[in-house]
């Protein structure tokens, strides 16, 4: 079963609508369907091993969040019947609200995780571009992916350098804020310099204000046809004296 990114987007929108509009029972059933889909349907399997590994801890933390949400609301929204669970008085209205909000959140988060795990950002960007998203936005997304790969390494380098110079990176709050600034300054400076370089490189490649200058594929005109005829005639005129005795 081959599904395009736009098909997957439609399925995502459907589950988001279920999360926001349908009752809690429908949201819980939908979470199970999404989990089964991720397991059994090849188009929804994670593309990268890393996103596959990240799914379970994130999902479990969301389940924990939904559980905490239910308990906290059960304790605080004091309306309806009281249930004593492990010595805690939990109220019906609070539990209902917690389950509703928790299941909604779980469905939203799970469907987003499955969707983003099964598509790559460059593919998503190119698909959205085909759907009419402006070129600037697509290029911004692709450039961000590049920066995201390089920034953590730069931060680590600057952080180590600051620490080696004796900057108080693990000291009082005001000093930590100062060291935050001292890490950010060179990072932003290098980011600006790289942006200027990349901006110049893009303009040299024909990109200007988000559009690409077209160097090919222009429509044929009568003049270009006449031009070609003259080039062919010129070549004939040049070659003919060589060929003829």
């Amino acid at each position: 079963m081959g599904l395009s990114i736009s098909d997957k987007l439609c399925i995502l929108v459907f589950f988001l609508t279920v999360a926001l509009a349908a009752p809690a029972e429908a949201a819980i059933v939908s979470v199970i369907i999404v989990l089964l889909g991720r397991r059994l349907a090849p188009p929804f399997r994670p593309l990268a091993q890393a996103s596959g590994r990240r799914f379970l801890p994130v999902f479990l933390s969301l389940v924990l969040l939904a559980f905490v949400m239910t308990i906290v609301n059960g304790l605080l929204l004091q309306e309806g019947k009281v249930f004593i669970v492990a010595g805690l008085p939990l109220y019906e209205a609070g539990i209902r609200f917690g389950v509703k909000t928790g299941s909604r959140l779980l469905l939203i988060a799970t469907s987003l995780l499955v969707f983003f795990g099964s598509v790559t950002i460059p593919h998503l960007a190119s698909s959205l571009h085909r759907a009419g998203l402006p070129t600037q936005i697509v290029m911004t997304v692709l450039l961000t992916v590049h920066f995201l790969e390089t920034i953590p390494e730069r931060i680590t380098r600057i952080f180590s350098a600051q620490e080696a110079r004796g900057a108080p990176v693990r000291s009082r709050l005001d000093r930590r804020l100062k060291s935050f600034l001292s890490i950010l300054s060179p990072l932003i400076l290098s980011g600006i310099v790289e942006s200027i370089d990349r901006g110049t490189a893009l303009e040299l490649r024909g990109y200007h204000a988000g559009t690409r200058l077209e160097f090919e594929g222009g429509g044929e005109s009568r003049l270009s046809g006449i031009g070609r005829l003259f080039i062919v005639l010129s070549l004939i005129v040049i070659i003919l004296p060589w060929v003829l005795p």
Partner: protein
Amino acid sequence: MWTTIRRQFDKEVEGAGLPFVAFCIALNLTSGQLAAGLKIPLYLDSIGTVLAAVLCGPWSAIVAGSLSNILASALGNPAMMFFIPVVAVIGAFSGFLARKGWFRFWYLVVPGGILQGLVAAVVSAPIAAYVFGGVMLSGTDVLVLYFRSVGNTLLESVFYQGISSDPVDKTVTYLIVYILCRNLPLRLLQRFNGGNNVLTPAMLRSIHGS
């Protein structure tokens, strides 16, 4: 209207603007982690958005903020998708303040940050309350629980939590952006559409020699 917005955005991202907006998005996604790594009890995750607003313009900042949250969702934090309206408002508001010259003097930056925090709290409260039930598994949940335990409704509790933490976070963000921009070399500032947003009238006069 769409054509006018696109033209304005095109103007903002001319030359180095487009890669810089991309850099700001990446900065948004990493500065929060850096703040957490340094154990700073603030989010500081909108520095890139405010930086884009000041140096490029409001439309670039809206794009930077929105794409940051979409990419954060893609990278394992799906809750961020629902806060896109909040970051869009942060981008638009800080871009508006930058245009009005609020990033030229520190005494305007501080009230600007406080105002920004209040605006962010107003926009984020309904989302945090109705989508997440006020619980986000972060340190600020304690404040929501406290405000609920003293008899406030969920929306009120989330809003009070917002106005007790957001203005501080946004004021620090604004001050960081102000300090960073004021320390940038003039030749770099002038490469951006909004470079003049941080130059005081005296600096502008010295550049133009009049």
